[in-house]
């Protein structure tokens, strides 16, 4: 069976949020910008320390929503004109009753493209081969720093200095 190659680096675990934030800031100041930070819930302090940009998910949502509206309009109009049936002198194709279909398809396509976006965008930074600890989904924050063996010592001491409760090497 395929086994992902382990990424060499150092994994630090933190019980205190301020310690983890200090460690992230210290690591980034030393040029370690390719960090992977684990947490059980999203945390604004961690996001600010990592200086993340706003996710591109919103573009997918927008495109999905617009596609849904367009598909709804195109489908209702085209099918009405494909077999025109005149009922009670009313227009063959008209927007007001089709707004419902357009709206529903906007929500449907928008929601599905949003979820697809998370899957696709998360693939840009895969987690396979990167050290992990099950306690990160419980009550600890984890910081994985990819680095070669010759820089691991510096990273370890920085993590310990920041207040890490456990530091280990992944090779």
């Amino acid at each position, binding site marked *: 069976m395929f086994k992902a190659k382990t990424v060499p680096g150092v994994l630090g675990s933190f019980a*205190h949020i301020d310690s983890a934030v200090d460690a992230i800031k210290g690591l980034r100041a030393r040029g370690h910008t390719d960090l992977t930070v684990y947490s059980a819930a999203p945390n604004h302090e961690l996001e600010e320390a990592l200086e993340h940009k706003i996710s591109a998910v919103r573009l997918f949502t927008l495109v999905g929503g617009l596609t849904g509206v367009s598909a709804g309009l195109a489908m209702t109009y085209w099918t009405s004109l494909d077999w025109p049936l005149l009922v009670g002198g009313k227009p063959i194709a008209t927007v007001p009753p089709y707004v419902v279909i357009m709206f529903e398809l906007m929500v449907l396509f928008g929601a599905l493209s949003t979820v697809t976006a998370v899957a696709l965008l998360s693939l840009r930074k895969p987690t396979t081969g990167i050290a992990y600890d099950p306690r990160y989904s419980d009550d600890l924050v984890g910081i994985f720093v990819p680095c070669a063996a010759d820089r691991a010592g510096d990273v370890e001491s920085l993590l310990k200095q920041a207040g890490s409760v456990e530091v280990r090497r992944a090779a």
Partner: protein
Amino acid sequence: MASATQHPTQTHAEVTRDVIGTLGTPTRGYYILLGCVSAALAVGLVTFFFLVKDGLGHAGYTPPVMWSVYITTFVFWVGIGHAGTLISAILYLFRSPWRTAVYRATEAMTVFAVMTAALFPIVHIGRQWIFYWLIPYPNARFLWPNFKSPLVWDVFAITTYFTVSTTFLIFGLIPDVAAVRDKVSGWRQKVYGMLALGWKGTDEQWRHYSRAYLYLAALATPLVLSVHSVVSWDFAMGIIPGWHGTIFAPYFVAGAIYSGVGMVFTLLIPLRRALKLEHMITTYHFDNLGKLTLLTGCILFYAYGMEYFVAWYSGNIFEQTTFWRRAFGPMWWAGWAMIICNAFVAQLLWFRKVRTNLTALFVISIFINIGMWFERYVIIVSSLGNDFDPWAWGLMNPTWADWGILLGSFGWFGLWFTLFFKHFPIVAIQEIKEMIPMPRRKGAH
């Protein structure tokens, strides 16, 4: 009694332990519950078998009442789902802290209620094996569905609502399933590991996830308002007296939320006790749910009054007759059951003592469930039964085939919900943790 605090008082580790603790070995009571809902479902399946074998003649359809218990129950279950989306999506956008402990259960209720509702158009149409004719593709003569029909709008609304609600539920579950994966062992770890879809809670995953969750909530919010509006237009677009009202959309949406919160009480009050979650789902949450019930109950009270007022004020003899007969005709008992259970019983919730008394809330919730089923029964059956010409008036009496399918629907819903709460976290671990500040080495800032 558990304290009514706004924020959870546990640590992150305690939240994980307590919620995952609910997934342990099932008790005898759980198996009894599972047996009861399975038996109810079996009754529904047997009834459905006879409906397929012999036709809809077994049901109580009597001209001119050709929509009756099945459409009533369809609207009832669609409505139940609405409270779930209100709590999970709309209150998320409003940042209401009290939603966190209850939203997972209500969202699961939404998905299972819509799954239940979706069965009813199929049961109702007769010749159920060609139900796919409802889907918009051209028939043998290349004739397309009529997109100006509210029934076709409803197909789109319900399908979208089911898809988006299910997506929202599963999406919200992913981090919690990963938390379960990290706590269990053996084959369960493998199964939860597969269901967690590789979730590890990295900063990159949270960055996209949090945004996506916000957008899903933003999309689900107008969706939930649209769905019951569209359901109401199934009736309001017709010219039947008693149906043809402009207030139907907000009236139905308020009623849907009211009935849904009623079902939340019915499910959560015993469940929190059975799963020992009294310290997480507290009277604080029920107090707020009670306020929501009171608000929607008052909107319903107003809508009921306005229906009668408009019928009188319009001077339209057909409307006036329908509403007179709704109160004093042969279905008076159903008409008053709806008004008493919905408009009047909800007024008890003005009192905080009632909103924080779980026994009282449970009893009120049963009244709400019954009242809201009768609301739809009255709107559908009494209106159809009092058509324009008195010689065509008629009544239908539900038969064993109507009650069998109704009971089966509770079995179907109950089976899914019972299986869900024993296999997935019924309280959102990740969102509760988000509300609890992580410990600080340097003290609070």
